[in-house]
């Protein structure tokens, strides 16, 4: 596992092997967040329950998922961005039947909704852009792009 942190420290960029199930992946990412006290105990269970009932897979510029739990599980307002060597199948948002192969996961650990309006808008814009997403996956300096685009919203 390769880990990089943004300049502001609130964005963690992980590179993981992937290839397993979405619940294995959310367990792995959730453990990362719990151990570093970005999320509170119970985060993993909450993420898996939520993803089961209301999936977050998206067919965007590349396949992405944006898992998040109730805000009570946020310890530190932050975002864990995960790029996967092998895609992981997620159920598509708003569907009970369709799956999407996911290459990038954005675990959102947020608190107040009003404060994060711009952050969520910026994430939405990023996942729609092929060049930005390819840079996130392939570029060694992707963490600098994330710092520039998102740090200010997480401070």
């Amino acid at each position: 596992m390769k880990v990089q942190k943004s300049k502001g420290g609130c964005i963690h960029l992980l590179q993981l092997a992937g290839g397993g199930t979405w619940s294995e992946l959310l367990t792995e990412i959730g453990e990362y967040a719990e151990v570093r006290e970005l999320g509170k105990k119970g985060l993993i269970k909450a993420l898996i329950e939520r993803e089961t009932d209301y999936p977050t897979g998206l067919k965007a510029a590349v396949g992405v998922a944006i898992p998040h739990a109730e805000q009570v599980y946020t310890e530190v307002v932050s975002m864990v961005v995960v790029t996967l060597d092998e895609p992981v199948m997620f159920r598509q948002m708003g569907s009970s039947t369709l799956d999407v192969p996911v290459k990038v996961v954005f675990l959102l650990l947020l608190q107040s909704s009003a404060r994060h309006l711009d952050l969520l808008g910026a994430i939405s814009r990023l996942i729609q852009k092929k060049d930005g997403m390819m840079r996130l996956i392939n570029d060694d300096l992707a963490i600098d792009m994330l710092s520039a685009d998102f740090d200010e919203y997480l401070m």
Partner: protein
Amino acid sequence: MKEKRTLLIMCAMGYATSTMIKKAISDYLNLHNIDNWKIETTALNMSRELVGHADLIVSSLELAADEYQVPIVNGVPLISGIGQEEILKEIHEHIRRIDGLV
């Protein structure tokens, strides 16, 4: 002044995907000078009262259309960007119809 109509955006937690959808729709409404609609966001389990006031619902969830009295639009394309224009046009059509313009 006429009371504003309500476009209600519903998602599971009421703060993440609904906010993404809100951004796309409010940009569109501004662009088209539609100022007689207000946008609210809510979580599915908190939405009972708000649903009663809604004129149009956009959601990132699979909702059973027959459980609601107003049109339901799937808002997922506004987050992924795939099919975004079509969905914005669909929302615009609903707004025009509800406003009695068509």
